[in-house]
């Protein structure tokens, strides 16, 4: 009976992480639709992503309550909660970014379309590897290091692409407001990778503590 409850909680954690992965995929689709000017599809993806964000929030709270009320994994509880919350923040950033695209409708240079697709791909790769690292933290600690390395790699790639976009934009004859607006959106997509890296930093410390 004891193990049955534990299994249920395990499933909930897995479901939560699945939602984060789905959120990342939807974000990529959303950006692609925006760049292709398929606004109806884009709005559909935004709606889905916000729904996923809400469901993930509820699920995370539920997991946290269970961990505390049943005094489960007392020595790692703080770490797990911190990890889930900072992962949730990454998911929230994806939804916020897509929402800002919908609200502010930024005008992006057509020649930067591929760069934008690349930066979205790279930052979501960060998020996906973070989720894999989290799964490994629960089941296979030895594998966490590999995922952390991948996240660090993709984060650097994201930074490089962002720099490239900004350099290109600021070397055009467009208005400064346009340039700043473009930089602002690049920065937002970059934040997904930054937040994923934060989660991995916590993860690296948590695995050291795990078998002290």
């Amino acid at each position, binding site marked *: 009976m*004891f*193990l049955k409850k*534990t*299994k249920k*909680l*395990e499933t909930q*954690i897995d479901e939560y992480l699945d939602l984060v992965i789905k959120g990342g995929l939807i974000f990529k689709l959303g950006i692609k639709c925006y760049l292709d000017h398929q606004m109806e599809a884009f709005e559909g993806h935004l709606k889905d992503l916000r729904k996923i964000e809400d469901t993930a929030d509820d699920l995370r709270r539920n997991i946290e309550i269970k961990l505390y009320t049943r*005094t*489960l*994994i*007392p*020595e*790692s509880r703080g770490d*797990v909660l911190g990890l889930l919350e900072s992962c949730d923040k990454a998911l929230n950033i994806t939804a916020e970014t897509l929402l800002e695209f919908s609200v502010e409708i930024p005008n992006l240079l057509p020649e930067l379309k591929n760069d934008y697709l690349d930066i979205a791909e790279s930052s979501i790769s960060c998020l996906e590897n973070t989720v894999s690292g989290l799964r490994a*933290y*629960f*089941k*296979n*600690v030895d594998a966490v290091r590999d995922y952390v390395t991948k996240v660090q790699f993709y984060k650097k790639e994201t930074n490089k692409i962002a720099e490239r976009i900004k350099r290109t934009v600021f070397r055009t004859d467009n208005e400064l407001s346009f340039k700043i607006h473009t930089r602002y959106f690049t920065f937002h997509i970059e934040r997904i990778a930054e937040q994923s890296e934060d989660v991995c930093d916590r993860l690296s410390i948590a695995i050291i503590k*795990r*078998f*002290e």
Partner: protein
Amino acid sequence: MDISVWFFISSGLFLGWSLGANNAVSLFGTAVTSKMIKFRTAAIISGIFVVLGSFISGAGTTSTLTNLGGINAIAGSFTVALAVAISVTWMTRASLPVSTSQAVVGAIIGWNIFTGSPTDINSLTKIISSWVVSPIVAGIFGFIIFKIVKNTVLKWKIHMLEIDSYTRTGLIIVGAMASYSMGANNIANVMGMFASASPFSELTILDFYEISGIQQLFLLGGLAIAVGIFTYGNKVMKTVGTDLYKISPITGFVIVLAGALVLWLFTSQSLETFLLENGLPSIPLVPLSATQSFIGAVIGVGLAKDPQSINFKVFGKIGIGWVVAPITAGILAYVLLFFVQNVFEQKVIQQVPYEISESVIEQLEQDGIETEKISDLVNKRFLQNKVFRYELLKRYPYDAEQLYSIFHYAIIDSFKIDSTLAIKSLDQNMFSIEQIEEIKLLHGKAFSHKIDFDAAVFYDNQQWGLNGDRLRDKTINEKKIIIEDLFKITKNNQAKSNIY
């Protein structure tokens, strides 16, 4: 039962209470401080298993303590237990990891010296070597178990929450095991000194289940330990257990398991029989320090994790405990016995007469002990240990072991063989028909010395002789003790033998 008996036993109960309060932290400290198990749950499990361990398996280590010194007057037992309780409390306050087991040994020797009774050097050596060996064995167990867990369980890719679940169950199981072993191993410290002066008589429940006086004593002692765990264990865990926060529940599980195994090794009579059956060296059944075993296990696990993290000063502290605890308790027992005997006029020893007979001389010669110088003492009766000892030492400088043998052979026990008692009380599954028949032939014979009784009853070497086969010899010795106890005329047995 005389009400004063309860007063005398109270010091043993106090000792049990303090033992429970202090040892709860070893049994469930990690589990409770890491919030894996609630204190209440831990205390209930621990209390139940301590009582069971004391009641069911407490006999093994007790005989080692009674061999060391058979305190046979209840005021003596009271004083010895009080000396132990005071010295342990005092040294614990001085932050020395001393144990009740070590203080008890010192206090019993204090009683021996005060009353002039000889100390069994053989038992003493056995006990002291076990103190040194037990933390080392616990360390080795801790090291091995931790390596096994790390290289198997932690590599099996089990979900963290499942490991948590298994660890919780594991902590409860090993905590219960450790409590059982601690009760069985340490009850001798709490109630062992009352064993020879047990105020309880045999109790029959529902006409078929008999509880001996000793078992009742142990049950009471076990309950005292359990009360100690319940009432004060939590407080000790909160103060002493702060360092345990650093120990993860899995490591805690390994430590408690290693500690419990060591306590069990030095307590289990069935394990001893198993080892003897398989021709393996047996482990002495000795009361150990639970705390020191657990410290040994902590060090073993530490070595397996990171040898540089070990604070080797702990060894020094344990070593100091081995010396300081017995000496302090011994001196205190001596002083308290003096007061109890001379100020409160209580009998701290039930004097037993000694007499060196011809047969005693013969036996001593066989053992290679000097007899010529004491030939003038033959057939003289001594009513006081001190006088007997003085007379012996005046004639020849016997060492402690030789003195023990002379006292052992010269004691007047009074035996009377009764064939009806033999038929009624000797279990036919244990004794052969020939053995019982031989005893019946001796009906009516009385002996004043145990060696005369033994020579008459166990004359048949084929049936009773020891041949070096340790298991057979152990069984024969146990049978001999049963027969000796059956026909020994003591205060309790007097009434029984009069009936027949």
